[in-house]
């Protein structure tokens, strides 16, 4: 593709990434209220682990981000970690770690969406949400 005269950027610049995993997670988090009417909520928090913190880990690590998907019961100040998604500066691949289950690495947005859909719609997650609803 040829750049127009007004566009002086290199065509070698990486194409803008697809929707980042944290945004996809936030979209799903906000959708939960449709089912639970606020008795159980969902929230996504992001924490950056910059290089300077690498020395605090058991072994030096690259900087990375950790997006955490929480289910919450506001009446109890209780929250339950449903999954974490870890990714580096280049976003993809993403390591998805559902709470209490094995981690899986996904290479791109479609694979992430497939994995997230499978997790959120699973019988296990449904039971978790329903159990939390029972406590609310």
């Amino acid at each position, binding site marked *: 593709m040829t750049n127009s005269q007004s566009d002086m950027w290199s065509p070698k610049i990486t194409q803008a990434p697809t929707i980042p995993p944290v945004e996809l997670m936030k979209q799903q988090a906000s959708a939960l209220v449709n089912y639970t009417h606020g008795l159980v909520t969902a929230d996504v*928090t992001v*924490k950056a682990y910059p290089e300077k913190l690498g*020395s*605090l*880990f*058991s*072994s*030096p690590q690259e900087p990375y981000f950790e997006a955490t998907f929480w289910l919450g*019961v506001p009446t*109890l*100040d*209780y929250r*339950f*970690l449903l999954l974490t998604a870890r990714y580096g500066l280049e976003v993809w691949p993403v390591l998805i770690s559902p*709470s*209490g289950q094995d981690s899986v690495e996904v290479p791109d947005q479609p694979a992430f969406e497939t994995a997230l859909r499978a997790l959120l719609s699973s019988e*296990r997650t449904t*039971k*978790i949400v329903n*159990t*939390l609803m029972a*406590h609310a």
Partner: protein
Amino acid sequence: MLTIAFWNVARKPLGATVAGLALEWDVDIFVVCESPTSTDATQTALSQASQRPWHTAFAIGRGIVVYTRLHPRFLQTRRELPNALFLNITLPLYPDFLLAAVHLRSKLHAQTADQAAAARKIVRELSSLERDVGHQRTIALGDFNMDPFEEGMLSADAFHGVMSRDIALRHTRRVAGDSYGFFYNPMWGFIGRSSTVPGTYYYDNSGAMVNQYWHVYDQLIVRPNVAPWIDDARIRILTMCGPQSLIAPNGCPDAGAASDHLPIVFSIDPPVEIST
């Protein structure tokens, strides 16, 4: 997942720093000892920093105080010693577990034998409690005022905290005909670690022939049943609170601006229990 922190603030008014750490590390339960700050003030600082209510779950005077952002109904005190507080924590979707918060006497006021005796007393109480509740899902944390290799931490009839997860998973060891339960002590791995600070506490005993300088007095140890919940890579000795260093320019804990002990933080990821 649950995140738990411990800090001996060494009689310094560090409520705001405790709150800052709780926010930064997304702490659910914060055990603080030797705080001169009132529990109300610390609880308020925690609540203001996180913009959500924190509770003072339990306290032995100001020696050991347990703050939590969890609803207090999830934490029940089961037993208490002058140097230890035993809580049962029951959370939705997770198996209940015991949390023992301990603060043993300093070497300034206790001999090695005294510390080991105190450790044995705590373990006896804990073992009795484990029999009462019918499980051994136990986490003990605090300022043990002993290194992992000292008698009170390692002896079979005391904490029996071994450095190997695999050995701990044998659950018990027989010594002279008696069976003793293990703890797994992941803090062995923090002794003299080159990639971070060499310990949680620094004491320059320069008049002594043997001078270790750094110690790992602040520890968490877990029963074998809990070992799979712990990711060693998620145990941290903290050296910063936001932009504030907890380390002085000489590389030691900043006892002037903060504490002579460094805080520790870790996460547990218990298995999810879903009723069918």
